[in-house]
């Protein structure tokens, strides 16, 4: 008896009228009777690069993030530890990925968490210190960097690299402080997506967790972090 895979493949070949690898049933363009031109290339005459200047792109990102009810601040490199400490002021515990100070953020004079109140319990995750799900649930906040941000849609991309951390840490704590290096900001979706390796674990974040399921009104704060603080790091 044929396996499910063989049988499905057989049906697909029959549906397409495959004869020696050639498709004899290409489909019909509805309303015309003309056969579909299956050899035609995909027209890619949509915009693949943005048109705004750099400062306008940053202004647009801020505008869109605020529209999603995220809190946004801009900080010069020397101000970053202070701004982060302020954002995490009320937190009892914070989790951070191992490579938070790596990548472009290694250009900062002081580590990102250097100005934090000593009372805050900090876990910097590596293979041996990974928190359990319950421990993460009891952690008040998470701080990560990010790979690329798309201004047009207000979207921040995390890719599981050392400075973004594994997916669970930016999900379970209720407060996410996310660093966005200025050099990682682009204008439109194709520019952002081109910087992403999809075979990594990719999380795209556009504002805090939200739902539109009740009368199609957007309500912030369901299962993901209910507070999203974005720190745009100028000059790196």
């Amino acid at each position: 008896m044929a396996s499910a895979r063989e049988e499905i493949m057989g049906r697909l070949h029959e549906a397409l009228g495959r004869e020696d690898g050639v498709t004899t049933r290409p489909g019909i363009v509805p309303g015309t009777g003309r056969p579909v031109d299956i050899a035609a290339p995909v027209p890619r005459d949509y915009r693949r690069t943005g048109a705004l200047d750099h400062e306008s792109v940053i202004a647009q990102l801020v505008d869109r993030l605020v529209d999603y009810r995220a809190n946004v601040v801009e900080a010069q490199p020397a101000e970053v530890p202070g701004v982060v400490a302020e954002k995490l002021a009320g937190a009892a515990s914070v989790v951070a990925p191992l490579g938070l100070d790596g990548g472009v953020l290694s250009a900062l004079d002081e580590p990102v968490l250097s100005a934090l109140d000593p009372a805050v319990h900090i876990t910097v995750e590596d293979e041996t210190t990974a928190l359990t799900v319950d421990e993460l649930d009891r952690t008040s906040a998470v701080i990560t960097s990010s790979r690329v941000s798309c201004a047009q849609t207000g979207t921040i991309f995390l890719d599981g690299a050392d400075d973004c951390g594994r997916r669970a840490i930016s999900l379970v704590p209720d407060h996410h402080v996310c660093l966005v290096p200025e050099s990682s900001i682009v204008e439109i979706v194709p520019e952002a997506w081109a910087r992403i390796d999809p075979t990594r674990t990719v999380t795209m974040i556009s504002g805090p967790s939200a739902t539109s399921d009740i009368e199609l009104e957007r309500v912030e704060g369901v299962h993901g972090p209910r507070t999203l603080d974005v720190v745009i790091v100028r000059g790196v």
Partner: protein
Amino acid sequence: MTTFLGMPAVGGGPAIRHARVPGSIPGALGNVFESEHFPDYAERELGNAQLRRNLGHATSTIRAKRANVVAELPDWEELRSAGAAIKQTVMANLPELLEQFAEAFEAAGGHVHWARDADEANRIVEELIEAHAPVLDTGRREVVKIKSMATQEIGLNEYLEPRGIDAFETDLAELIVQLGDDKPSHILVPAIHKNRTEIRDIFLEQMPDVDPGLTDDPPKLAEAARRHLRNKFLTTKVAVSGANFGIASTGTLGVVESEGNGRMCLTLPETLITVMGIEKLLPAPEDLEVFLQLLPRSSTGERMNPYTSFWTGVTPGDGPQNVHVVLLDNGRSRALADEYGRSALHCIRCSACMNVCPVYERTGGHAYGSTYPGPIGAILSPLLTGVEAEENDSLPYASSLCGACYSACPVKIDIPSILVHLRGEDHLAKEEAAAEAGPAQRVRRLASAEGQLDAGLKAASWAMADGRRIALAERALPLASLLGARSGRIRRMPGVVGAWTSSRDVPRLPAQSFRTWWGKNRGAAPSSGHDRSAAAKEGDR
């Protein structure tokens, strides 16, 4: 944009090829059938004033949001064209892309399963759950679920329930539907037919630990859902998801969502089982630069949805380490074999077509019976099952053919033309069935609405083919105009048109035809073909 209304081409246009679906390809099983004829269900739903208020409010809100964010993109039409072309490429190369996807997904540490139909997919998922989810103190196993059309289609939750497995829906709207023991009525917002007060009442009744003082304030309702599900996310070992996209060249899967329930299910459990329709593939990563723009703007009317996740097989140290995908046919190969309706498989489940549909807005989604309601459901369900299946023959008629769905569709599915095509399929199927049947059934067919329409259309076609015949027919007009002479309205007509006049009046027929009027007032005959002699004669009188 033109909408094909089934009118034959005039003057030697392209002949319409009629290619029937090979009979050897089986149709779908599962929740893709009408339980009763659309007009009967719709008539009942139209009597529900609360439903119509909720739907009218919701669809008009989302229509305005969508229009705003679509207008923001100067290249929206180019994106639509690219989206349609990419999907066309996918359909033409589906066998090769599936092989490629399966190979890449397995190379990344994932397991690939193939399901011919809903039953087989359900069995595969059940076996995986039994192998990986522990039996709890209650004697049952539990899984958390991300909202998924594919698992709705195969009826997974209903299948698992009597087999000792509870599947918890974690999307807020699905939760509302599940707790209310209800059915989804919209692809995107399954509880669109419920307003906030109705939702509050469901929560008060069905959530064990809910605050009895819960108000109908949406943020409070969302908070209640968060508390209700939190522990499930943190402790459940197996999650079941659908997928919005699968990238063939890399074996990557993607889920688009809002609330973070998706991220919870994709990240925290040990085992992840994804059920994906085989048509969801995209050839390469770059294709997502198109669909990541088309989908959110078309569905929730946002520039981007709050969360989108991609994963490729297993990533050590990050998320589930036991990852499965079930590639589901369930009638998709049958839809692919319909050369005319094939492009219905381009659908990315955005729901823009239902939000703009005047029929959907009034009847709601339940009237369509299937998991797939609205204009796309009216073509997709009969394409998956075959139009002759059960009650699905009424779905292609659940439309006024206004074409709004075609304009809204982000991948340019010509839904009106496919509806007309399926009406033709339905007609042929009924004729064939009547021809094969005995004389008694043939007589019944002649007397049926379709039979009367057939006879009427044949007569009209004969009369209209020749100017002399139509002129002759028009002579009956002065007599026919006596109908309804007193009120100026015809209130009841016989036979098949009686259904029309049961809820409408027909204006009284005029005493003379336009051609007669023209002859009298302009004196000259219309200037083409053999109409001339007949019209000229009338003019002479």
